């Protein structure tokens, strides 16, 4: 029962996510302000806290649990895939990985994830 409920919730959450994606798909190049905002969200301990695990250019005292976030465009030619990776869609989640599913678990909003993606896509 509990696991059924969980599936249902995940499905709901994911479909909510899918609905929100076209918004980014049509969005044009992010502004400098958006990128700066994304950096703030990524570095903030109470938001993305990406530095806990990833080295990021300009971030002090990063952890070394995950890979350094560099050359993101090269590794993710499809920007939506990067959004989904951070959101935590099951298909892109490595089993038992320590990386939190930021969207699926409601740690960040879809719009915060989009903004963070805009920023790390510049790295």
């Amino acid at each position, binding site marked *: 029962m509990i696991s059924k409920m969980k599936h249902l919730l995940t499905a709901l959450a994911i479909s909510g996510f899918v609905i929100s994606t076209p918004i980014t798909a049509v969005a044009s190049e992010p502004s400098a302000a958006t990128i700066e905002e994304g950096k703030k969200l990524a570095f903030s301990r109470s938001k993305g806290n990406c530095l*806990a*695990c990833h080295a990021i250019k300009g971030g002090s005292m990063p*952890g070394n*649990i995950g890979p350094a976030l560099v050359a993101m465009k090269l590794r993710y030619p499809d920007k939506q895939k990067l959004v989904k990776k951070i959101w935590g869609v099951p298909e892109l989640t490595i089993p038992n*990985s*320590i990386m*939190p599913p930021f969207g699926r678990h409601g740690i960040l909003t879809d719009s915060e994830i989009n903004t963070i993606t805009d920023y790390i896509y510049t790295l």
Partner: protein
Amino acid sequence: MKKTLLIALSLGVSVLATSSMAATIDPEKDRQQLVDFFKAKNPNLAPEEYINGAYIFSADKMAQWEAAEEFPPYLDAIDEGEALYNKDLAVYQKCFGSDVSKIRAKYPYFDEATKQVVTLEGAINKCRTDAGLKPYGWKKGPIAQISAYLADNARGQKIDVKIESEAARAAYEDGRNFFIKPRGQFNLSCSKCHVDNAGRKARANTLSAALGHTTHFPVFRAKWQNLGTLHRRYEGCQKNMRAVPYKAQSETYRNLEFYQAYTSNGLEINGPGYRE
């Protein structure tokens, strides 16, 4: 096991979670696998070294820590623990016998009569209430001080937790399941940090290995500026996972301690300890 281990080592993903598919867990085999995992991960570290927590991963940190341990901030707490113990000496002697060096190493153990894990702190408070004395708070203060006094008297003895019944085995498995199951908003498990990523850094904090987690408690933490019990630490880590912590000395945490202590069998008791 070999394949799982290799995958886990290269990706930093959970070796415990993958091997938990097995029908029932054999504690001794399970413990050995954990030891083997750390041997494979850190060939230069002997299992005995893990009692010193995260410091074993950095020569610099180790040197700083060793300097701190030369005149450690928990010395007063040991003295206070001794005074508290002697204040109710007759009561404690009835429960624990007259040799204070023979107490710490008996805990935790599985009580076959009540089918419950008994921890040292639990036994101290039960001893008090049975004698009509007020119980102490579970996480710091007098209970941690007495625990520190008893640990200090048992230094150098080895952890030797026994599992001799199906019920005890089940308590181990319960603690183990708790340890590996992701929980909380961050979807973290204890093992993701303290097994898979032990030795790596979360920001500036090096993650200690699960092996040896119970040997040196209670701990004086610089962050706390006083002594705290193992279950206080459990609560803290659960909060960091954005999970709702269990209560100190709840059955869940007692089983978790039982699991963690069993996997540390053969390691030296070196409590109380100092940590950042």
